[in-house]
């Protein structure tokens, strides 16, 4: 049993490619093996009809309650619009220095903003969000370096500005936190 395993659990339909490519990038960035699993939860329980969105806080707690013995970091991946009570939307969130995070692909697609869809851009954005939220689970906070994946992003354009890698300082911090 390998406890140093990161698990991406998808809830809903995703193209196989996008999950595998994202998993490859995560493995490369954090140097841990990454496995992909399919999860099933009744999303209607998390739906807020007034906001027509899904409650990110409750989803995070739900994913956190899953017991995955072979995994030390878990990221729930959704294709629905997430919110937290205080904010109009979120791309994802995580327990800082904890075990769990969530991310959604819903707002990452160009088509959502009336533009022509672009699968490569979507993959890049999705990968960055997955790495970003997992970075929080390792204890990394938001970084001011514009190219660092831990840079806070409130719009998709912000995600496009950064790379999918940790900057030198965040890399050092990651090493000191994990010993990897």
């Amino acid at each position, binding site marked *: 049993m390998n406890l140093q395993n990161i698990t991406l659990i998808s809830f809903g339909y995703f193209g196989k490619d996008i999950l595998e490519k994202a998993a490859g990038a995560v493995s490369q960035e954090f140097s841990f093996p990454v496995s992909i699993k399919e999860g099933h939860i009744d999303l209607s329980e998390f739906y807020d009809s007034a*906001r027509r969105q899904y409650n990110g*806080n409750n989803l995070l707690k739900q994913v956190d309650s899953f017991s995955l013995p072979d995994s030390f970091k878990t990221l729930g991946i959704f294709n629905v619009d997430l*919110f*937290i*009570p*205080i*904010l*109009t*939307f*979120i791309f994802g*969130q*995580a*327990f*800082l220095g904890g075990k769990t995070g969530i991310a959604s692909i819903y707002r990452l697609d160009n088509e959502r903003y009336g533009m022509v869809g672009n699968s490569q851009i979507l993959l890049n954005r999705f990968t960055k969000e997955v790495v970003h939220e997992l970075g*929080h689970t390792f204890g990394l*906070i*938001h970084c001011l370096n514009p190219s660092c994946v831990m840079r*806070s992003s*409130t*719009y998709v354009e912000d995600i496009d500005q950064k790379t999918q890698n940790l900057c030198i300082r965040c890399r050092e911090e990651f090493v000191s936190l994990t010993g990897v």
Partner: protein
Amino acid sequence: MARKISILIVDDEDSVRDSLYNWFIEDGFRVECAENAKKALTILESGEFDIILADIKMPGMDGLEMLRRIKSLKKDSIVIVMTAFATVDTAVKALKDGAYDYVTKPFDPDDLTHLIRNATKQISLTDENENLKKKVISLENVEDLIGGSEAMKNVLREVESVAQTNSSVIITGESGTGKELVARAIHSNSSRKYFPFVSVHCGALTESLLESELFGHEKGAFTGAMYNRKGRFEMADSGSIFLDEIATISTKMQVELLRVLESKTFTRVGGNKEISSDFRVICATNKDLKNMVEKGTFREDLYYRLNVVNIQIPPLRDRKEDIPLLVDYFIKKYCTSMNKPAVPIDQSALKRLQEFNFPGNIRELENMIERAIVVGTGKKIGLQDLPLEKTMVNNFAESLDDFERAFILQILNKYNWNISRTAKALKVDRVTLYNKIKKYDLKLAGQ
């Protein structure tokens, strides 16, 4: 971010507190939460927070009441109120009560980021401002008032104690000892430091000019008075006025000054409106005012009015141990202003400076160092860069040997240590000159 900004979240809803907590923690802030205003106030009593993010509608004490209480405890606290759409009016009221800003729930992530970024920018500006103020004050306090001697330490102690009062001060000391600097130090250490320090050189003005300078004048008061002009007393309102060379003012001005000091009111020349001004008077003189009072040239009542505290600044010759510090300070000062690297001073030159009497006190030393930096090679200040020997022959002849030594050295330097020419100029033979050089241990500068 220079330091970790702290945020206190006050909201009765768990989900709101959790969401904001996670959001800010990910941004690297120090975060604490309170579920009601009472708990928030208890937390604030035991620790300071840079930003307080509070909901307006809470059971028990509402956000507005909490805002008022926080503001009464710490006026410059940054409180951001959160409100629902229906309570924007209340948010406006909160702004009037001193809230930094407000956000309507739920807010766009970008709005929250901007709001916090602006608040942290204000905090860092406030911090920077405080630090700069402290730096400026410390610079004002110590700059130019150099000295580690006991005599100077006494002066600094007196400055410190008198600065806290509002009493008039007379600073006495020889010309060039730094009387104005002491006056500035008193001002900048007092509670009046953020108000003007107005300096008037009484000796440089005629009686009528001094009157107009001190009290101001109305348009047309005299030929050339084309505009209304504020006087120095008026300018010094809430601050300090420094009257240098107070002993030089006329008897008439002494009467005027006494009246102003007693009533703190005056009228401009040519005017009839009484003006009041709250100033502190600091005077300076190099004369013996007491003696002038005895001779009847200075009013006794004015003397006692001014002489509440007397600070006597010692001449430089009485605190020669301060000379190396002063030399070092002036070298740095002038090299910096001339964009030159700081030059060291030759030990023999420094020794000679310490032997010198400095009748012109620190001003003379300062001018000497400035000149040496201007005309020197830029590598080292040596004896040849200091106009010391010439001055010394004139001013420092405490013994015949001293005089002879300085004079021979001066002539040697004049002829670039050419023994024959120096001996000829001194009208002695070469052997005698060699003997004198040996006797006085004279050396070519730099050797």
